[in-house]
Structure formats: structure tokens, C-alpha cells
């Protein structure tokens, strides 16, 4: 390229092969490479956070998948049975006596410590058995009851034996008693079905998500029943019928702004309007669902309008051309074609609603309720508020249960979003 300087006739001839230009290009390439690396590092950071989040949840959550149980033989000692009211018998003492008898090397003074191995549920299990079968008096039965939280942790190896004894929740002699029970093969670690079949409890070993799941179900159902028809109605009107005037603009601006209002403000709305002014019941999933519906509405309206917009004008014109009214065109042709998009948007909106916590806290859906709600008007918790309650509880056993509850919540979210993606891919049309 010796003639480059002669033929290059810009404002100033440039020798593109010069060392100076070459060095500059190398520098420019290096700085581009740095930008690329920084970008990759940024994405890497985001993925690292996601990975740490998931790993920490799974690492703590899987501990809650099992629950230590202890099998003991208890005697319904006639001396401790309350003849007049068997339910009020001294089951604690019976358990204590049976434990002392069965743990090698234990004396009567250790009874209290031994009783601590078992969950509080043990006495109620005994009572229920007796009430179901009064002939048990004087007989010995085998009970398989959950171990209390500290011993559950001990059995799972989550208690550091190196910690000084006075700082540990289980003392050396208690560890020894538990070890003795384990040596007899009385300690098992079956699947923790309680987690899904029971409602909340103050004791981690008895706490479950049934109440929260039912509450969330009722709340989402209410949310769906309200926001789906209202959202579609609003979207159809705004997209297909509304005159282009100030009022329509105002509604649109309103919807867009509502979508960005902080969730806690919706909680304040629910508290002031639904609970205080209208006197609706506190902590009820129905009211929670109403608040969630107001929050989900903008999502559904925006998604529905996008789906309606995607239906080509030619279809509307074709239907109008054969003499259909505008409503007939919309309800017979446009809406059915837009349905997959509408459903996708609705499911995504409901998935967001399922994860909402703050507004539900404000209308009291953090109640401590030990039974699943029978109707949407009974006090209840929801899945995310239950997670909040457990995360706030001091008992160590709740840490793993919180993670497990989160995994359940994330599982539902994955399911719902997966369904939305499936719908979108299956019915997506390219016009």
C-alpha cells in the first residue's frame, strides 16, 4: 500500500499502516475488551447473587423436609387418669414416668429434662388416643411423636458440640439421654409431612403451611374473580370503544400511575377503606384478595390491551363488513383471538399478587391462627406473610422452615410463570 498516501485524499492523507495508528488500534481494542469484561462481570455478579440466594435457601430449607420423631412406650397409669374428665388427666406425668423408665440411667429428677425431648404435641396425642379408645386405661401403647425443636436440630447435626455447655440449648446429659434413645433405635427421621398438612404453631416441629396455603388460595381466588372480569372489561372499553378524549386519557394516566404505586400504599388503602370505613373483617383472605385485585388490575389491563392491539385490523374490518355490530366484532372475534395473551397476562399478574406481602400485613393477615380458614372471611395468613412471621420467630427451627416455605412459594411462582410461558408459546400467533 505504498500509494496509500497518494490516493488517500481526505482532508489530510493518512497512512493507515503506520505504527502510530497500529498502536492506537491495539489500545482501542484493549479498552473495548475491558468494557466487555466489565459487562460480563456485571452479569456474573447478578447470577452469583441468584446462585447464593438459591443455594442458601435450599441448604437451609432441606433440613425442614424431614422431622425427627421419637418412638416411646407410654402407660396410661390409672392413678393419673381423671375419672370425671379424662381429657384433663395428667398426661405430662404419664409421659415423664414412661420416659424415665425407658431411658437407661435416668432418674426421676431427670424427668423434666426428658420431657423436653418430646414435642408438646405428645400429650395431646395421648389425650386424643384415650378419648378415642377409653379402654386404654392401664395399658401401654407405643407412640411415635415429633421431637422438640432443639433435639430435632441435634439429630440433624445442627448443634455444635464445641459450644460451651452453658451457651448450648441442650446440655451434655440431655445429649446423652437422646443418644441412649437413639441407640435403642427409637429415633427416626421421616419426611416432614406436617409442613404441608398442619397450620401454624408456636412450636417449629408442629408448624405447617396449610393455613397459609388455604389463605393464599382464597385471597388469589378473590383477586382473580374481581380483577379478571373488571380488568378485561376496562381494557376492552379503553382499547376498542373509548372515544379519544380527555376522560380516556385521564383513565389511562391513572392506570399507568397505579401500576407504580408502592404496594404498602395499597395496604393503607385497604386498612382505611375496607377495614375502618366499611367495617369488613380483619385478617380475612377475602379482604386481602380485594386489595390484591386493585394491585393486579393495572397489570391485567395493560396485558389485555396489548393482546387486543395485536389482533390485526383486517379481522375487525372483515367482521364489520358482514354487518356485525362493534360489540359483536369485539366479543365474537377479537377477544377470542386475544385470549391467550389475556390469560398469560392474568397469570403473571396473579403470580405477582401471590408474592405480595406488605399490603397483606397491613390488613392483618399476619394473624397467629392455628387452623386453616374454613371460609374466605375467617382470619388467616397467606404464604408470604407466613414466611414473614416465621422469619421473625426466634426459634431456630423456624429458619429452615422459613426457607422451606420460600421454596414452596417459589415453586408455585415457577409453576404459574411456566404455565404463562407455555400458553404464550403454544398459542402465540404471528400475524
Amino acid at each position: 500500500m505504498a500509494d496509500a498516501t497518494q490516493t488517500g485524499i481526505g482532508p489530510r492523507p493518512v497512512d493507515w499502516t503506520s505504527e502510530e495508528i497500529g498502536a492506537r488500534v491495539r489500545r482501542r481494542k484493549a479498552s473495548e475488551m475491558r468494557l466487555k469484561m466489565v459487562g460480563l462481570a456485571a452479569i456474573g455478579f447478578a447470577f452469583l447473587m441468584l446462585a447464593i440466594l438459591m443455594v442458601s435457601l435450599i441448604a437451609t430449607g432441606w433440613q425442614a423436609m424431614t422431622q425427627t420423631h421419637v418412638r416411646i412406650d407410654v402407660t396410661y397409669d390409672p392413678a393419673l387418669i381423671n375419672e370425671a374428665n379424662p381429657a384433663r388427666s395428667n398426661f405430662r406425668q404419664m409421659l415423664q414416668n414412661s420416659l424415665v423408665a425407658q431411658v437407661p440411667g435416668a432418674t426421676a429428677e431427670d424427668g423434666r429434662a426428658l420431657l423436653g425431648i418430646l414435642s408438646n404435641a405428645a400429650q395431646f396425642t395421648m389425650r386424643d388416643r384415650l378419648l378415642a379408645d377409653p379402654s386404654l386405661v392401664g395399658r401401654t401403647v407405643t407412640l411415635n411423636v415429633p421431637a422438640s425443636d432443639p433435639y430435632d436440630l441435634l439429630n440433624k447435626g445442627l448443634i455444635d458440640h464445641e459450644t460451651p455447655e452453658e451457651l448450648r440449648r441442650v446440655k451434655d446429659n440431655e445429649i446423652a439421654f437422646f443418644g441412649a434413645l437413639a441407640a435403642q433405635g427409637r429415633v427416626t427421621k421421616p419426611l416432614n409431612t406436617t409442613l404441608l398438612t398442619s397450620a401454624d404453631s408456636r412450636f417449629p416441629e408442629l408448624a405447617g403451611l396449610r393455613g397459609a396455603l388455604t389463605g393464599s388460595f382464597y385471597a388469589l381466588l378473590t383477586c382473580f374473580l374481581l380483577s379478571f372480569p373488571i380488568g378485561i372489561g376496562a381494557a376492552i372499553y379503553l382499547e376498542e370503544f373509548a372515544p379519544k378524549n380527555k376522560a380516556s386519557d385521564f383513565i389511562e394516566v391513572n392506570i399507568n400511575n397505579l401500576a407504580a404505586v408502592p404496594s404498602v400504599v395499597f395496604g393503607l388503602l385497604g386498612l382505611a377503606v375496607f377495614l375502618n370505613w366499611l367495617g369488613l373483617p380483619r385478617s380475612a383472605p377475602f379482604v386481602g384478595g380485594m386489595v390484591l385485585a386493585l394491585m393486579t388490575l393495572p397489570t391485567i389491563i395493560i396485558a389485555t390491551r396489548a393482546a387486543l392491539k395485536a389482533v390485526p385490523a383486517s379481522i375487525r374490518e372483515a367482521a364489520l363488513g358482514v354487518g356485525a355490530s362493534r360489540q359483536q366484532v369485539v366479543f365474537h372475534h377479537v377477544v377470542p383471538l386475544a385470549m391467550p395473551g389475556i390469560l398469560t397476562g392474568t397469570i403473571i399478574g396473579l403470580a405477582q399478587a401471590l408474592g405480595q406481602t406488605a399490603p397483606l400485613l397491613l390488613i392483618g393477615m399476619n394473624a397467629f391462627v392455628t387452623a386453616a380458614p374454613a371460609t374466605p372471611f375467617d382470619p388467616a395468613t397467606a404464604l408470604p406473610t407466613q414466611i414473614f412471621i416465621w422469619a421473625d420467630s426466634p426459634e431456630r427451627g423456624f429458619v429452615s422452615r422459613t426457607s422451606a416455605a420460600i421454596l414452596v412459594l417459589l415453586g408455585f411462582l415457577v409453576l404459574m410463570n411456566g404455565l404463562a410461558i407455555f400458553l404464550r408459546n403454544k398459542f402465540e400467533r404471528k400475524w
Partner: protein
Amino acid sequence: MFPQAADWVRSMTTFAFALLFLASVAGYLLNLRAARQLQGSGARLHSLAGFHGGFSFLVVLVPGFIVLILWLLLQGAVINALVLRSLPPGTTDGLDPGAVQLIVAEIRQIAGGRIFGTPEQWKIDAAARLTALRDTSATLMVVVVGVMSAVLLILSRMRVSPDFRARQGTEAIVNGLMIFCSTVAIFTTIGIIASLVVETWRFFGMVPWYDFLFGLRWEPQMPIRADQIAAVGAFGWVPVFVGTLVITVVAMTVAVPVGLFSAIYLNEFASPRFRAVAKPLLEILAGVPTVVYGFFAVLVIAPALRDFGVWSGLPIASNTALAAGSVTGVMLIPFISSFADDTLSAVPRALRDGALALGATRGETVITVLFPAAIPGIVGGILLAVSRAIGETMIVVMAAGLIAKLTINPLDSVTTVTVQIVTLLIGDTAFDSPKTLAAFALGLMLFVVTLGINVLALRIVRKYREIYD
């Protein structure tokens, strides 16, 4: 003696809804058959028979439904007022509204069958009256709905004739329903503003507004005795707001660079394969509920920062603003990155080609041409993210502090507007203490600030879109 009453109310309510629905279906069938008969007799109908049916269905259903909902929403307040008025003279004289509310609550408890201690006889009497009123109300509701349905049924049946424009009638009702749906958003906004403003107004009746806006101390302890109201608590929102800003700044320090550089990489350098995997993964980060991030902050980030503080000797508080802020930042990464990605993609291809054709590297193209061109859109996106960070609740409730401290040191523990709203309102709330109402004043400030930022951001974004559309 009382619980059966609740059952009566419940079954009456169910019955009313069932009755209304059946009446509507009956209306549909009646008019459909009438129209068909007209057709059969050779008349040429203006509208299809189905529209005659649909008309009757809606004419019966819609008014009945509105009456039912209003009845259910308003009967509580009316019954309360009636019960209060029927109380023996002297029982509520000179009591403030809060105490009266307590009495009403107790009467309701008794009526619900939950009796604690031994209430006075007049309360038990009032509870009986309450129950009776509820029963009457439920019965009356069924009667009203029944009569209304019957009248409307007959009226709509009478309209069936060959010339009746049933299609227009039906469509007008449907149109009205859709307009109502559209206005729900407006009612929601009105509801938000009304509830916040009314309660804040009451709050300013107890605490002067200038103390709230300019006060430097936030100590909303509940006064123990009634005569202490507003004497102990301090309600200056400045430290709370500053705390919110500290956490927002920390969050943005994490989210903005990470989000923008991710977007640049995804937009300019990533292979389509990498993009196809990376974008959904980032979206997962956006779909995780905030309560999960809150737990993550408490479980992982806060202990890690504490350990780092011990190791490095930095005075990192146990619930440092860094923990809540950085996790909020992580939550916002996908928000910023996808917004920036979209905005960069919206820059016309011609500009990119122009720069490349001049011999710019891809890096130079994105930094010197695309990025400046996309700046308005990106700024709008960042503003939206800021508004989200300010309104973020669960992460800060779980990981930030409760004590309002006027500091801008992110290592320290601060509290935020949302934390205070939730902690003030969690548990039982009485609507007459400044503590409860202060939460609404904070809510109003939060609403105003976030709304302002959003409006500004949306305006910037729209301007930007107009340039390139």
C-alpha cells in the same frame, strides 16, 4: 345462644345471591321463549331472540347485584349507628370516639359468642339487639332483592316485541358495565388519596404539620395513659426520610452500574445463545417476591457484612443500611438492565451502522453514540427504579433498623418510611392514636414522592420514544 344468628345471616346472604342469579336466568329464558314465539308466529324481529334474552338477564342481574353489594357494604355502619342510639342514656355520654368504638367492638364480640368476663347487662342487651338487627337486615335484603327481581323480570318481559331494539339495549348495558370497569382505576386512586388525606388530616389535628415536616426526631412511642397523647411521641419525619434516601442511594450504587453494564454486554457483545439464556435468568431475579429478598438479607448478607465489620474493624451496625440497601439493589438489577437493554435496542440501527462504518469499535459505538442517544430513556428507567427503591417495603422491614437516627452513614442502622408504616400498623390498630395516624401521614408523603418521580420518569421516557418512533 348467638352463633345460630350468624348462620342465619350467612344463609340469607347466599340465598339472596342465588335468588338473584336464578331470576336473571329465568328472565333470559322467558324473553328468549317469548321472542321465539313471536318469530314462530311470523313476526320479523328487529333483534335476534338471544338479545331479548340477554337484555332481560342483564336488566334483572345488574341492579340487583348493585343493591346487594351496597347493602352488604353499608349495613354494618347503619346497624352500628342504630345499636349505639338504642343504648341506655348515660352509657356513652362524654366518651371520646375511641372509647365508643371499643364499646361497639365489645358488643360485637358478645354477639359473636365470644364473651370475656362478665359484661354489664346493657351490653348483653345491646348484643341481642345487634343480632336481631342483623337478622332483620338479612331478611329484608332477601325480600328487597326478590321484589326487585320480580318487578324487573315483568318489566323486561313486557318489552318483548318485534320492534324492540333488544340488541341496542343489551349493548348499552354492556357498554355501561365496561365503562364502570374502566373507572375502577379512578376510584382506586380516589380511594388512596382520600384515605391518606383524611387520616393525615386527623393526624395533623393531633400533631402540628410543621412538627411533622421539619421535626428532626421520630419517636412514635405509644403514650401509656390517655392524657399523655402527643406529649411523649415525637413525629418529625426528616430522619425517617433521610434513612430512606440512604438505603435508596446504597441500592442504586449496586443496581445502576451492574444493570447498565449488563445491558451493554447483552445488547452489544453477547451471542444470541448467551442472550437467550441470560435474559430469562435475570428475569427470575425480578420475579422473586420481596419477602424472599428480605429473608435473604437477614440470613446471608447481614451476617456476612457483620463478619466483615469484625474482621476489618469497620463500625458496621448489626442491621446496617448496607444490608437492606444492597439487597434492594440486587432486586433492581434486572429492572434497570432490561429497561436499558430495551432503550439501547430502540436506538435506530442506522446510528449503529453509521458509527461502525466510520471504523468505530463496538465498544466505542455503544459508549459514544448509542449510550448518549439512549440517555433520556435510561434516566427515566433509573428514576422508576429509584421510586421502587423508595417504596420497597419487605426487604427493609426485615433487614433495616427500627430506630430513626439522623445519619447519612450507610454503615449505621437507619429506618425508612415504609418500615415505620408497617411497624406502626402491625398488630391491633386504633384509629384514634397519633401513632396509627402517623403511618398515614408517612404513607401520604411516600405516595406524593413516588408519584412525582414516576410522573417525571414517564414524561422523560415518552419524550424519548417520540424522538425515535
